[in-house]
């Protein structure tokens, strides 16, 4: 079956611009996570959705970052006024219920020039 998909695979933007990153989880998975991974590091938790609601957004670095999941399926991570330090791989994962293994997508490589 289809796994987690993320679009775009690569995004290059200029400092100060707004970007949206999309995640399509595995069908039927109620839990969705966003992580950010810098080069040479492990993924770092950003936000967790259970259904449509953000159950834990404690990992979002500041108020420039926001994520939504309006229908409990697709999620969009939104970054306003991008900064060069936002450059990283943004990973999305989904899980059947939230307490089982997470299945990761291929990620979106964001580069802020």
């Amino acid at each position, binding site marked *: 079956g289809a796994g987690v998909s993320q679009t775009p695979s690569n995004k290059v933007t200029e400092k100060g611009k707004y970007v949206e990153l999309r995640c399509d989880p595995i069908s039927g998975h109620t839990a969705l996570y966003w992580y950010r991974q810098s080069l040479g*590091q492990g993924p770092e938790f950003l936000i967790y959705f*259970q259904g449509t609601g953000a159950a834990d957004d404690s990992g979002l670095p500041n108020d420039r970052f926001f994520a939504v999941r309006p229908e409990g399926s697709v999620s969009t991570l939104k970054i306003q006024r991008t900064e060069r330090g936002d450059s990283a791989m943004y990973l999305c994962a989904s899980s059947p219920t939230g307490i089982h293994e997470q299945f990761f997508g291929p990620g979106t490589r964001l580069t802020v020039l």
Partner: protein
Amino acid sequence: GESVGLHLPTLSVQEGDNSIINCAYSNSASDYFIWYKQESGKGPQFIIDIRSNMDKRQGQRVTVLLNKTVKHLSLQIAATQPGDSAVYFCAENINAGGTSYGKLTFGQGTILTVHP
């Protein structure tokens, strides 16, 4: 702060050898651990998991050992193959307030290189 860490950042082995990748964790409230494999340009791929009420779990060619006394986790890969070359991450899930959901804390990772 509380974190998951790895003892060895790189590991080189010959094809056919067994590999052991180690991981230390510091949070005694962690109740679930996962090993992921990540190849270049791809997302992490689930390998095996273990819950804190277990000491050992086996999969296909892989075994995870959990020593809660010293807060140590290891991944053993039997008969390592060139296709096993990747970065391996351990991750922990902290059971906060009795509600265990999958917020994971990852370690830095170990680069495994398998030589033919």
